[in-house]
């Protein structure tokens, strides 16, 4: 239900102003018009920060380093100051204010880069991002900002990614299997989000769950590609405990967090918790599956890819069902999109020999077109079901 729909109901005389107010409060609806402003503001903030970073990278010798430092600092503090003024002091442009705080946090990273550039510091890249992350870590709570929290999660992902790809790192994991770690990190975010639902920080739970499931889907999807993880040199110095530890953490968070899904029945709470934990277990197992000894020019579906494709399909279906019960359009759409992508990957993976290629193209092409129509119909029906209040359902 949208804020605008409730407004229209009141204008049509179907509900009173008091009832409208109660509905808005009950569903915690927010004004729709603000979304466009939010998107525009955040795109603007990212553009400003990226522009400043590029100007820094251009390295203008003509500007004295003191001027560069003071300008960088002034921009960062100015962005936060203006954000605070609009959001907390005047309170009339909260979303623009949040976007300016967002730019301010990105500008802190730009300033770290600037100092490194001016003094030719050659520190480990992971330390640069870790410093940035530590510097902004308190801001989501101090500003009560979901955008800052999303940035914090992004920061964790970047720090983690850069660290595991560093050859000198204690948690080195710089081969193709690192996608498993990112997918597990996504599940850790999701589980954390579920746990946050019943805490003082419940306004951050949606961000953690959304980012987490998106990261999980993006990084576990390659497992369904024919030949993925089936061949390649594995360095002996790769960390051995990180993946099982992250898997255990993801499973633990998911299982304990699912009890907070109050919109689901007990049976579905358990099912979804076990599904998330099972996904973590499968990701850990994928790391220990023996690789092929022979290299193939064209990858073919290995047992790992087949299991992943089936598991991904089942996960997508369960996610759609949970999305329907949770009335979450995001869960439904994400599930449907990745089921479709899974089918496409499987189709390509099972692509037969050259003799049947033409026939396969025609039959499978027609099938995909029809299946796409079917999926779209299904999606629309599910979305309609979400938008219909529970009481009105047959």
């Amino acid at each position: 239900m949208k804020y605008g729909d409730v407004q229209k109901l009141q204008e049509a005389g179907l509900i009173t102003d008091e009832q409208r107010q109660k509905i808005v409060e009950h569903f915690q609806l927010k004004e729709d018009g603000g979304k466009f402003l939010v998107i525009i503001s955040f795109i603007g903030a990212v553009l400003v920060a990226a522009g400043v970073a590029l100007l820094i990278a251009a390295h203008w010798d003509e500007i004295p380093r003191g001027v560069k430092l003071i300008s960088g600092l002034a921009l960062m503090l100015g962005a936060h100051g203006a954000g605070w003024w609009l959001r907390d002091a005047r309170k009339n442009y909260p979303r623009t204010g949040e976007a300016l705080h967002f730019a301010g946090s990105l500008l802190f990273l730009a300033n770290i880069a600037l100092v490194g550039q001016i003094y030719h510091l050659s520190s480990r890249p992971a330390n640069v991002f870790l410093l940035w992350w530590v510097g902004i870590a308190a801001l989501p709570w101090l500003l009560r900002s979901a955008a800052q929290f999303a940035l914090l999660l992004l920061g964790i992902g970047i720090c983690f990614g850069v660290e595991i790809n560093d050859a000198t790192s204690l948690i080195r994991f710089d081969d193709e299997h690192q996608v498993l770690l990112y997918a597990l990190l996504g599940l850790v975010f999701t589980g954390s989000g579920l746990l946050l639902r019943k805490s003082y920080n419940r306004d951050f739970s949606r961000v953690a769950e959304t980012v987490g499931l998106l990261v999980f889907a993006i990084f576990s999807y390659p497992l369904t590609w024919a030949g993925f993880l089936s061949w390649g040199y594995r360095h002996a110095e790769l960390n051995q405990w990180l993946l099982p530890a992250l898997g255990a953490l993801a499973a633990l968070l998911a299982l304990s967090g699912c009890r907070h899904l109050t919109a689901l029945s007990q049976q579905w709470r358990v099912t979804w918790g076990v599904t998330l934990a099972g996904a973590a277990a499968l990701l850990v197992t994928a790391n220990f599956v023996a690789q092929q000894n022979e290299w193939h020019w064209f990858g073919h579906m290995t047992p790992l890819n087949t299991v992943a494709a089936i598991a991904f399909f089942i996960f997508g279906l369960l996610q759609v069902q949970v999305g329907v019960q949770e009335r979450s359009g995001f869960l439904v759409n994400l599930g449907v999109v990745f089921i479709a992508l899974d089918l496409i990957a499987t189709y390509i993976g099972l692509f037969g020999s050259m003799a049947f290629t033409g026939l396969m193209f025609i039959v499978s092409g027609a099938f995909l077109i029809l299946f796409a129509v079917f999926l779209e119909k299904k999606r629309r029906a599910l979305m309609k079901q979400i938008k219909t209040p529970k009481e009105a359902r047959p």
Partner: protein
Amino acid sequence: MKTKLFILVLALQSAWILGTAIVQEHTLASGKVILLETARVDPRDLLRGDYLILNYKISDVPVNLFSPPATKDLPNGTKIYVALAPTTNQFYVVTRASANEFTPAAGEVLLRGKSDQSRWSSTNSIHVEYGLERFYVAEGTGNPTGKLTAQVAVPASGRSRVKEVFVDGKPYAEAMKERR
């Protein structure tokens, strides 16, 4: 209360930026300035732009200069202390090295670095990184031709910093401007 904490976080962020700048400025201003021979390759950093990777003659330290003796299979990242002394052509060269800190003799400077086994070095030497390997330059000027020399400030702590790089004796930015 939250506003105060928010201001405290911003103050800490600013303090790091200014504090790092002050420490680096102090190193550049007070450190003993030495000249090193170097060569370069030119990649690009996503955040900090074009830079030269400087490979110094002192980067490969012969194992026979280590005291106590060291072998090539020194663990990656081991702290290495390297003493340098000037030669007749004013460039500094390695006189001795150790995995333990020691006091440099008169006329010597002590540099602190880390062993880096991921880089190739000759069979009888250990590759050492001093934190002097990057020199950030203006956009599109990372391809100098000519003899490169680096002017390095070395404080008592041994954590040295590049002060300037010269191309055929001219400051880098000036030399590259003339070639445009």
